[in-house]
Structure formats: C-alpha cells, structure tokens
C-alpha cells in the first residue's frame, strides 16, 4: 500500500542519514526517490563525505563507496533486524579510522543480535567476542579451531 511504502522510505532515509554520519565520523547523506509514484520509484543515493562537495556518487573512492553501502544496509537492518547477520570481508577496503567506527557500530548492534564477521583485519578480530580459526592442515579439507575469547592474549605478528 502506498502509505506503508512511504512510511518505510521515510524511516529508511532517517536511519541512513544517521548511520552514514556515524560511520564517516562527519559528512552527510540522504536517499531520494526517483520520479514517479513510490509504487515504482527507485532510490537515488546522495552522499557527501566530510569536507567534500556534493558530487556524483561514482566519483567516491573504493572505501567511501563500501562505507556508504554498509550505511544503507545497516540502516535497513536497524529497522527490521534479523536474529543473525553474516558479514564476509566487508571491512577489506576500509582504512584504520573507518574500521574503528565500523567495529564500534557492530558492537552496539551485537548487544541484541548475533554477528558473524569473516575477516583478515586484525582490528576486527581483536574486537570480537569469540574467534573461530579455520585451517586446512589436511590439504583441501577444512577444520575449525576454536581460538580464544576476546579477553585472552592475542599474539601480534
């Protein structure tokens, strides 16, 4: 129904603005409906990272695009959460400060939802409550090693 969708869009837009500014530290963004009725309009993303002028989204950097995508997906997630969320190497293009803000948001959301993050990123690993290590000591055959809780010493290498 038209009003149900309009309401959903408004909610998504508000959440997206909030999460974007939280993940980027500053800056602002919003969603806009393309022309036509909400029953068939598309969603345009308008994003302005901190300190920059508003420009075509495609000009954004690899890391900025990833963070904008995460902002939009997490906005949806915060409105209608699911019990579990699986993230596969979403932190790969992020620099250290963006990774830290991403981790902070994750830990906030994880208070009521189970998050599984596959990562090569040391900071993300160290911020997790539990770590599973996957190995292939026997070539071509995967095994799990339950590694350590977040409060066990993590070897830095």
């Amino acid at each position, binding site marked *: 129904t038209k009003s149900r969708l309009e309401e959903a869009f408004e909610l998504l837009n508000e959440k997206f603005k909030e999460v974007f500014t939280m993940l980027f530290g500053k800056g602002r963004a919003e969603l806009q409906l393309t022309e036509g009725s909400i029953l068939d309009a598309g969603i345009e993303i308008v994003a302005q990272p901190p300190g920059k002028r508003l420009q075509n989204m495609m000009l954004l950097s690899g890391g900025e695009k990833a963070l*904008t995508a995460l902002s939009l997906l997490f906005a*949806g997630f915060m*409105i209608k959460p699911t019990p579990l969320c699986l993230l596969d190497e979403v932190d790969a293009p992020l620099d250290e400060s963006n990774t830290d803000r991403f981790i902070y948001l994750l830990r906030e959301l994880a208070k009521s939802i189970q998050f*599984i993050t596959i*990562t090569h990123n040391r900071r993300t690993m160290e911020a997790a409550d539990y*770590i599973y*290590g996957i190995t292939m000591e026997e070539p071509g055959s995967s095994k799990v090693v339950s*590694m350590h809780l977040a409060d066990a010493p993590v070897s830095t290498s």
Partner: protein
Amino acid sequence: MRIERIEMVGFKSFASKTVFKFHPGTTAIVGPNGCGKSNIVDAFKWVLGEQSAKSLRGGSMEDVIFAGSATQKTKGMAEVTLILSDIINEDSNGSDSVDKKKMTEISVTRRLYRSGESDYLMNKVPCRLKDIKSMFLDTGLELKAYSILEQGRIGDIVNSKPLDRRFLIEEVA
C-alpha cells in the same frame, strides 16, 4: 529466537563433520585464503533453501558436495543442519502461566546425494522445503537481503541502478 549452531559434513571443503556453536555478540571467523570461511556462508544459504548453484559459486548444485582433495576421496553426500532455539508456548489455550513457555530446539537439515536426490528434514523428520520456509516465517528467521553481506558484493548496492535498490523499501516496510 536465536541460532545455536550449524553442523556440516561433506559440504564443500568441510569433508569431516564440523560443528560451529554460535555465541551472542560478535564472532570473528579467520584463516588463510581458501581455507573455507566463505564456504560457511554458502552452508547457511544452502540450508536455508538456496536454489541457485551460481549464487553458491557452483556450476551445478552437485558442486557443493565434497569433491575430494590431494589426500581424501570424494564424498557421496553433503549435509548441513541448522539448530535454532525458540521460546514456544507449551500450551496453546492462552493461559497466562509463564512457566508454560520453554526454550525449544528446532533443527533444519538439508541433504544432497551425488545421484541428485535431495532431502529436507525438520527435527530429523523428512519434510518439504515449504514446511521449512513456513517455519522460518513463523519464528522470524526469514533472512533479509541485508542479513548476509557476501565477499566482494558489498559495492553492488552503490553501483547498481536506482530501481535495483527498491527492494530495500519492501524489506523494511
């Protein structure tokens, strides 16, 4: 409701039976390239009813069955079981007694044989995929588009056309 654990045997690179217990909060899964981390994501998608082999990086569904390694023979079957726990009312007469509710485990299993034969089981009893899908709807485990963010696919929503993002409005409505 919460996910308790996922168990798999013969699924992709997980030749031997492997159990992942899920804890509250954040769980990190780490390991070298190709060790099997994304295969766990595939196991989740598969046990929840994924029908497209391509979305599991395969050419055909048979590709999810352990194909052998330098040191192990191929397997004849892939099996993944998802164990959830939910608070179920024991009596359905609407009485107010709180102690009638209890934590119940529900298990969902999917199997595929090399012959192409495949089974679905709920609590170890054979059932149809639609029984599993309706159970998920009832318990709210219906995963959304943003519940699984796949490797290398995070940029999709930003690179796609405005109309391809419409689905988000539906997901949160």
